[in-house]
């Protein structure tokens, strides 16, 4: 049993026989922004996907509000109040913006109220409401992926490299939006390669190397850490 809001304890997972996570333990308290940084192939995406049971944790526990959810089917996780903005956005390209958002809120009783708020937060989505999502720009698709995740009114928002492939100006907007969402009380677990932005935003951070947690600390601590500076921030 674990009393924390959300935590992983010694979680391992693998693709077939190829192990990808090695005894990963971390925790996220309610209201925190926690970030996970790591190089390409470190296993960041795999970690988020393991939370959703795909690949499944072969060892360890995933605690959500006191309950071990490591063995639940993937489609049960969303209903617990955990939402994911996945790597590569994974919006439904042949569906409209409206339908994509509806997909996020399909089990939420607040869907219509939240839709209003989300369209206010992302005016571009409002303009393109009836348009096929596949025709949106990369930045707009990222906003849609975030909006879709928020539609379920989650208590924990997981994001996988939301800034990937976006222009610097859009990245800046994106982090402002994340900050705004956090201010409204959302707990955020953010996976990023953009370590500089992410560490500045985060309360706490973890560094993942080859499927193992190597370092952890407050955002400010890691920003100052010489190793982190060298490996993830570009030597300054």
């Amino acid at each position: 049993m674990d009393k924390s809001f959300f935590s992983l304890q010694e979680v391992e997972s693998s693709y077939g026989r190829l192990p990808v996570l090695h005894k990963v333990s971390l925790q996220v308290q309610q209201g925190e922004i926690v970030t996970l940084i790591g190089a390409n192939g470190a296993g960041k995406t795999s970690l988020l996907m393991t939370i959703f049971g795909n690949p499944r944790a072969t060892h360890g526990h995933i605690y959500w509000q006191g309950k071990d959810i490591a063995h639940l089917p993937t489609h049960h996780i969303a209903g617990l109040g955990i939402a994911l903005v996945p790597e590569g956005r994974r919006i439904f390209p042949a569906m409209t913006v409206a339908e994509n958002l509806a997909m996020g809120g399909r089990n939420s009783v607040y869907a219509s109220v939240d839709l209003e708020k989300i369209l206010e937060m992302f005016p571009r989505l409002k303009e393109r409401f009836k348009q096929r999502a596949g025709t949106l720009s990369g930045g707009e698709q990222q906003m849609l992926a975030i909006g879709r995740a928020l539609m379920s009114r989650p208590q924990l928002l997981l994001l996988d490299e939301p800034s990937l492939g976006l222009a610097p100006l859009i990245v800046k907007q994106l982090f402002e939006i994340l900050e705004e969402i956090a201010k409204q009380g959302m707990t955020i677990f953010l996976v990023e390669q953009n370590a500089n932005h992410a560490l500045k935003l985060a309360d706490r951070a973890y560094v993942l190397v080859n499927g193992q947690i190597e370092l952890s600390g407050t955002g400010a601590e890691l920003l100052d850490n010489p190793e982190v500076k060298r490996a993830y921030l570009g030597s300054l």
Partner: protein
Amino acid sequence: MTAYILAQQLVNGVVLGAIYGLIAVGYTMVYGIMGMINFAHSEIYMLSAYLSTIVLAVLVYWGIQSPLVLILLTLGVAMSMTALYGWVIERLAYRPLRDAPRLAPLISAIGISLILQSYAVLTQGAKTKGIPTFIEGVTRFGDAVNNVQISNIQVLILIIALCSMVALNFIIQHTAFGQACRATQQDRGMAEILGINTDKVISLVFVIGSAMAAVAGLLVTMNYGSFDFNIGFVMGVKAFTAAVLGGIGSLTGAMLGGIILGVSESLFAGLVNSDYKDVFAFSLLVIFLIFRPSGLLGKPEVEKV
């Protein structure tokens, strides 16, 4: 003279095409969601011909006379029974192979086809079965020599086929289930992450596809009167051709492909040679597979990424 023949073949073609379309949607929906050709689908159609006949016989034995009541009741029972077959087949033959190499479910499908055919022969015999016509009457346009005929049964086929298609289209485009269905088709993993039980969606797709095949089974039986355990094969290839023609994975494509195939096949039979109409249809399939595998309305592969 030829104008009348042409018009007559057009009428016959549309009726035939509507039936192809009804079966084609089963192929296209399963392909769209699982990337797999369900070769057992045509055997569901074959079974539905037997089921319809049995139900009709029982209802008539019970003294039900009204053709409309007969048709609706038969449709209801046949659709529910084939839906059950579809559900069971998916559970037994495909779900255990969900993560297997692509060839495995294909082989499983062929196995199921053989099992269903043998099952029909064992329980019903290998002889051709039939039902008497119970809807009479034709409408003629033109004079005694030059005319275009449309029988009441053809009208009925068109109406029932159209209603089924409209209903299916509505379900897919405008209901929560349809939305879940399309999401599963586009990105199954993401649909799961959003809370959709995609196994259930896939089950329902088999159920719906099978029920549509049952509609076709009853309509064909009413129209042609006779059938045997082998009717699935040719009909299956035709309906599959229709699905490919329209763009496999696309619902509107399957309906459109059905009509196009039915009309062109009828025209070919009426104007060129009726003995080679099946060859014509199969050639069309081959030509499309070589030169335009994405069909008329199909999306180019890139969009699936």
